[in-house]
């Protein structure tokens, strides 16, 4: 039996890592230009979604288990809020990144990176959660009905 979607599968296998890489480019570019955690999160999630579309939901759930999704959603928020709590512990106002380093400008830098990572984490997992929730609702499309 030969696989009817061999081209799709091979090409998307090539694409998935590049999409993920691009997501991280957008993520870290957000520090000084257009981009940031939200956009990067959507792009990163789209890599998983593409994988799920081509290889099926079950394969995607093996690659990115739903238990990660739940933990990721919360830990993103906690990473964001935790940065604020850290600034409290260091004696500043909530989310005043200036206290994170000796030089306030560096502190702002570290703070925004931590916060954006939190956003990335939450947005990616929420996007995947939505896709999993809708994808699980109906039976998989039959091979002949593509």
């Amino acid at each position: 039996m030969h696989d009817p979607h061999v081209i799709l599968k091979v090409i998307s296998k090539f694409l998935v890592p590049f999409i993920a890489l691009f997501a991280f480019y957008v993520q870290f570019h957000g520090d000084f230009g257009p981009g940031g955690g939200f956009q990067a999160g959507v792009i990163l999630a789209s890599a998983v979604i593409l994988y799920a579309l081509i290889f099926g939901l079950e394969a995607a759930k093996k690659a990115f288990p739903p238990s990660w999704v739940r933990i990721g959603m919360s830990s993103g928020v906690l990473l964001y809020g935790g940065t604020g709590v850290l600034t409290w512990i260091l004696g500043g106002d909530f989310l005043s990144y200036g206290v994170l380093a000796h030089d306030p400008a560096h502190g702002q830098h570290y703070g925004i990176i931590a916060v954006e990572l939190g956003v990335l984490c939450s947005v990616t997992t929420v996007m995947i959660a939505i896709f999993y929730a809708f994808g699980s609702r109906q039976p998989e499309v039959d091979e002949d009905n593509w």
Partner: protein
Amino acid sequence: MSSMSLFPQWIFEQGPAFLIVLPLLMGAVTAILPNRSMAWWVTFFVTLICTYTAFGLFQHIYFDGFLLYTMGGWAPPHGISLIVDGLSAPILLLISVMAMLTVIYALPSSISEIEPKKRAPFYAAFLICFAGLMGMVITGDAFNVFVFLEVSSISTYVLVAMGAARDRRSLAAAYNYLIMGSIGATFFVIGLGFLFMETGTLNMAEMSAILSELNGGTRVSKVGYGFIIVGLGLKIAMFPLHTWLPRAYAYAPTKITIFLASTATKAAIYLLLRFTFTVFDPSFDYIAVMLKYLIMGAAIVGMVLASFQAIFQSDVRRVLAYSSVAQVGYILLGIGIATSSGLAAGYLHLLNHAIIKGCLFISVGAFWYRFGITRVSDFSGLFKTMPLTMGAFTLGGLSLVGVPFTAGFVSKVKLILAAAEQEMWWAVLVIVFSSVLAIVYIGRIIIVAYFGSPPKINGSTFIKNEAPFMMLFPMWVLGLMSIAIGVNAFGIGDGFVSASEIAASVLLGGRG
């Protein structure tokens, strides 16, 4: 000043942000807790700590004036500021106390209402809803209001839908609420867009300064105000926009009904006050017209029609839900009068109604918990089977009607005096008439419960089956609270009255 030492100094410096951050972060933690019973403990301690913090801030503003907190150290108007003043502090305290009492009630009721697997997410959604409501009240940034409004609304839709384990109709109710709530939030944000167009800022204090400089602004800000009123009206359940409320209250899990009835609409009314009186100004001609005709008109019609609707409901939760719409009418009437005594009366009724409705909904929840009943006809003989719960229900009911020596009486008399001051005799008449209708819809339930006989079970007529302590405690706290306000025990009544007067003075100029 000696009482100030009860609170660490840190609370006065960082408390405003702490009130939002603690429930929000603990909500995220609760969602991934492995141990299910721990979720309740976490939620309980979060609400306890928030109550303590809110109480500290409440005292602080009376001794030292209002608090301004700059998020991330960015000064307004560019950064987001949080404001605790005489207007927001009582509502913050109210929301956290009601959240704490609801959580106490929730421990026994969750056993029968929420599947074990869903309890941790349930408490997580509850905490996030709580954080959203606190955020709505505390923030001094208009767009931030919208964000927190959505945070609290979206978690509320989820919470209402969780009633599906008990009653599938809650899904339809939640969906209906979702549509209406989203329309409301959209209208609100469109209104903010217009305001931003006019003033170029989102900071409320800055907005207010620019608007009064422009003497009310052009048609843009008028349209903006219209959108904001409709958007908030949906959230408040102002009379013609209240259709989502009875179903959402009736089919949500009982503890969510308690929490929503005593906090969610109140926070939205707070926003209405905040926008109408401190961002805009009642001296602008269009605001005066809106207050006089739209808000007061909706209030009057709602007070009478919703009371009539309450009389004809067969489900007790729907009776109380329609009664909530009518009571919102009282509050809006006070706001519409727009004098300092009218605003104080409306604000006082807002606080009192939250306490009264909390008490009533907790006792109805206890009836449901013990016997699975919510219909008026099923209340027959409840005074004999659940005397303590029915006693609390009666206290709440009397207070809702406005019998002397109860909280309802105090605020209704103040409202009548405020209307009489302006020689609005028709308003006095409507208040009295609507109270008579309240006697009918509450009296109907109480008569059945007192004079009916309990149903026969296996030939024996009398079984006493009192609610568990965890339910009796919050309902009697609220019931006795309403009496304490009515008879001014321990100065509680005076405390509430002076809190409402300070709030009114904040609204009519100058931060107090």
